[in-house]
C-alpha cells in the first residue's frame, strides 16, 4: 500500500546531516551528503553495493567519525560529542544490525532484556514481563530461552528488532533488515517497521536495497550513487517522487534491469558505469 506523503513543515527534524564527507585514504566514500529526517518518518537510504549506505549509517549511530561535515541527532551535534554525552544519546535510539548482532553468550530473552537491565531501574519481574511483550510483538513467544545459535536467521533478525525496541526508543536505525529473509519474513519485518512508526510514533532510518521494502515502508527516500557519483545523493524524495525520478540510473536501480529502464543496450553500459563504477567518466552517463 503506498504511503502518504508527509507534511514536512509541521514536524521537527530528528536527524540533520550537512555536507558529510568521509574519505578512506584517497577514496571518497561519502561526498557532501546532506539530508534531514523528520519525526515519524520511515527514511530509507538505498543504493547499489559499495555506495556507502552502511558507512553513512555508522556515522549516524556515531561509531565512525566523518572527515568533515555535521550530523545532528535530536538537535545535538554528534561529530564533536564526548563519549559520556554520546552514551546518553545512544540511550534514545535503537539499532537493528544486518547480522542481528545478538550476544551469543546470552539467551534471546537476555539479549532483549539487556538494554532494560543496563538503562532502567525496573525490577527483574517487570523486565521479564516487558521482554515477553517485546518477544510477542515480533512473534517469538516461547523462544526466549534459546541461544541465538539455536534459532533461524529470520528469528535472529526479529529478536534483534525486539532488543532494539526494548526501551521504546523514539528513533530506530536498521541496517538491511530484510537481507537474507524469504518474502514472507521480509513482509513480516516490514510490517513490524510500519507498526513501529504508526503505533509508537518512532522515527525509523532503514538502509536497504530491497525495492519491495523501500516502497512498502518508506516515507522519504534517498539514493546514493556509485562510480562517478560515489557517495553523492543521486535522488531524494517521497516514494512517488523517486518512482518518477528522471535520472536513468535511479530508474534502472528501481526496476533492477541490467538492460536499462528502456531495455536498450546503453542501459547496461550505464549500470556498469553509474552503479558499479567501472568507468570513472561521468560524461558517458549524461550522453546515454
Amino acid at each position, binding site marked *: 500500500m503506498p504511503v502518504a506523503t508527509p507534511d514536512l513543515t509541521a514536524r521537527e527534524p530528528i536527524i540533520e546531516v550537512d555536507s558529510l564527507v568521509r574519505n578512506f585514504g584517497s577514496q571518497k566514500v561519502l561526498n557532501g551528503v546532506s539530508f534531514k529526517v523528520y519525526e515519524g518518518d520511515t527514511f530509507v537510504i538505498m543504493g547499489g553495493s559499495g555506495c556507502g549506505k552502511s558507512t553513512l549509517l555508522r556515522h549516524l549511530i556515531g561509531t565512525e567519525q566523518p572527515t568533515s561535515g555535521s550530523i545532528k541527532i535530536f538537535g545535538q551535534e554528534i561529530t564533536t560529542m564526548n563519549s559520556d554525552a554520546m*552514551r546518553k544519546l545512544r540511550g534514545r535510539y535503537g539499532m537493528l*544490525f544486518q*547480522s542481528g*548482532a545478538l550476544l551469543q553468550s546470552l539467551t534471546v530473552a537476555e539479549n532483549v532484556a539487556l538494554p532494560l537491565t*543496563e538503562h532502567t531501574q525496573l525490577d527483574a519481574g517487570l523486565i521479564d514481563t516487558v521482554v515477553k511483550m517485546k518477544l510477542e510483538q515480533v512473534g517469538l513467544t516461547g523462544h526466549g530461552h534459546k541461544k541465538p545459535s539455536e534459532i533461524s536467521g529470520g528469528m535472529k533478525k526479529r529478536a534483534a528488532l525486539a532488543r532494539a525496541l526494548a526501551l521504546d526508543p523514539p528513533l530506530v536505525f536498521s541496517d538491511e533488515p530484510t537481507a537474507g529473509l524469504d518474502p514472507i519474513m521480509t513482509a513480516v519485518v516490514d510490517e513490524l517497521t510500519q507498526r513501529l512508526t504508526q503505533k509508537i510514533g518512532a522515527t525509523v532510518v532503514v538502509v536497504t536495497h530491497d525495492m519491495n521494502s523501500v516502497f512498502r515502508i518508506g516515507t522519504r527516500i534517498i539514493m546514493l550513487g556509485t562510480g562517478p557519483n560515489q557517495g553523492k545523493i543521486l535522488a531524494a524524495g517521497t516514494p512517488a517522487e523517486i518512482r518518477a525520478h528522471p535520472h536513468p540510473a535511479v530508474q534502472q536501480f528501481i526496476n533492477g534491469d541490467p538492460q536499462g529502464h528502456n531495455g536498450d543496450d546503453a542501459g547496461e553500459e550505464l549500470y556498469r558505469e553509474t552503479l558499479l563504477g567501472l568507468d570513472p567518466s561521468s560524461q558517458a552517463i549524461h550522453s546515454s
Partner: protein
Amino acid sequence: MTEAFRQYFELCGSLLYWLFVAPFRGRGWRMGHTFAQIVRIGVHAVPMSALTALTIGVVLAMQSAAQLAKLGATVYVPGLVSSSLIRELAPLVTAVIVIGRSGSSVTAELGTMKVSEEIEALEVMAIPPMSWLIVPRFLAMVIMMPLLTVFSIYVGLAGGWLIGHFSLHMSTAFFISHALQYVELSDIGISMLKSGIFGVLIVTIACSIGLNVSGGAEGVGLATTRSVVVSLLTVFIANAVLTALFFF
C-alpha cells in the same frame, strides 16, 4: 607494528580509566561477569595446571637426583625442586598454560564478537565494551594467575615429594623441611609479583589483539595465533628482565 602498539597502549589507557576512575563515577566493576571469567579463565585451567606442575615436579626431582646422586648429595633434591619451582618454573609454566588455554580463548571470543558486530552492538546500546568485556577479564586474570601459580607450586612440590619419598626414601617431614630451607619469603613474593605481571601482559595482549580483529573467520584465526605468539615472547622477555632485576 606501530599501529599494534598504538592499539595496545590505547587499550591500556582506557583500561586504567575503567579500573580506577569509572568506579568513582558510578560505573563500578561488574562482579557477576568477573566471577564468571574467574571460573572460565582460572578454575577451568586448574586440571591442566595441576597435571603440568606435577610432571614438572617429578621430572625435576628425577633429573636432579640423577646428577646429585653422583656427588652423594641427594639430600639437596627437595631444596632444588622447591627453589626452581617457586622462583622460576611455577610462574612461567602457569603463564604458558594460561596463554595457550585462556589468552587464546579471550582473543578468539573478542575477535568473533568484533566480526559479528556484537561489540558494535554493545556500543550502540550505550554499554561500554571496556566495562562489559575487558575489565572482568582483566580482574579475573590478575586474581587467578597468582592463585594458579601457588597451586602449581604445591602440586609441583607434591611431584618432587613422590620421587623423594618413593625413590629416594626420604620421609615427608625431611622433604618438607629441606624444601623450605632453601626458600625465603621474598622468593614467594617475587613469584607472585611475576605471575601478576604475566597475567596483566597476557590479558592486555589478548584483549588488544581480539578487539582489533578484521577480516572475518580468517582474521579471528590469525589474531588468535598472533595473540599466543606475542604473549609467549612477551612473557619470556618479561621473565628474563624481572629475574635480572631481582638477581642484581
